[in-house]
């Protein structure tokens, strides 16, 4: 398999307390998505992460491959006692996913990162 780039750029993963914030942007190669899936799983298992927020507001398309990777990240995180929230899906992406037949029923979503963080933060009073 030919790779025109020297190395696949990494997807930035930011730790905010017990929550990992993953920001997906622009063109995501299949290999990058699979790498992210592995990296996240190891980080969740190795630390006290209780939640994962995946910000896809910068993603122009989600096809069935990326959709499957996102659903698998959420399932795997769930087995490792962390909850996943998918944040910021663009309206055009949502319309297309439904037409494609991919409604990702197991995924928790939020309109933006702030609301996703709220969903994951422990309730006060």
């Amino acid at each position, binding site marked *: *398999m*030919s*790779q*025109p*780039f020297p190395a696949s750029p990494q997807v930035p993963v930011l730790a905010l307390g017990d929550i990992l914030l993953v920001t997906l942007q622009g*063109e*995501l*190669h*299949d*290999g990058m998505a699979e790498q992210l899936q592995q990296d996240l799983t190891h980080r969740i298992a190795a630390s006290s992460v209780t939640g994962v927020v995946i910000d896809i507001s910068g993603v*122009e*398309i*989600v*096809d*069935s*491959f990326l*959709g*499957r990777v996102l659903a698998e990240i959420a399932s795997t995180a769930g087995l490792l006692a962390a909850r996943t929230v998918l944040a910021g899906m*663009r*309206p*055009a*992406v949502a*319309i*297309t996913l439904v*037409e*494609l*037949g*991919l409604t990702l029923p197991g995924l928790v979503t939020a309109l933006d990162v702030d609301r996703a963080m709220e969903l994951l933060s422990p309730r006060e009073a």
Partner: protein
Amino acid sequence: MPASGQASATSLPIGSDADLAWVRQQVRQCAAQLGFGLVQQTKVVTAASELARNTLVHGGGGRVEITPLDDGRTRGLRMRFTDEGPGIRDLDLAMTDGWTSGGGLGLGLSGAKRLVHEFAVDTEPGRGTTVTAVAWVTPVPSSRTGVG
């Protein structure tokens, strides 16, 4: 098929996941230039991604030809994906939602078909597969008065 006018076709190789990303970019650019709206662009690019991945994963790689169309009333985009892979043994089965021969979700062909206006598969076991998908620029739906 209407005469495709002045614009010429673009042919791109599909041999790696980096090629898939390049195909998506080229299809988006072409669709934007032809006047596709944002939702339509997203649908066409998603269909292209599904079909290009089929070409790569199931066909062992191939090519896509992207052709701008103009039938005199509206403009469109034709994408023709060809591979010389094993072909599809049971096309009806392959077009069924949820059926998969690979590791996917089984939405590639059936899902892509729903995202475009015209869709055709030409395949024969041992002779490879050609999938042709056409999308037309459609006006933003407005009031339904006047629709006969």
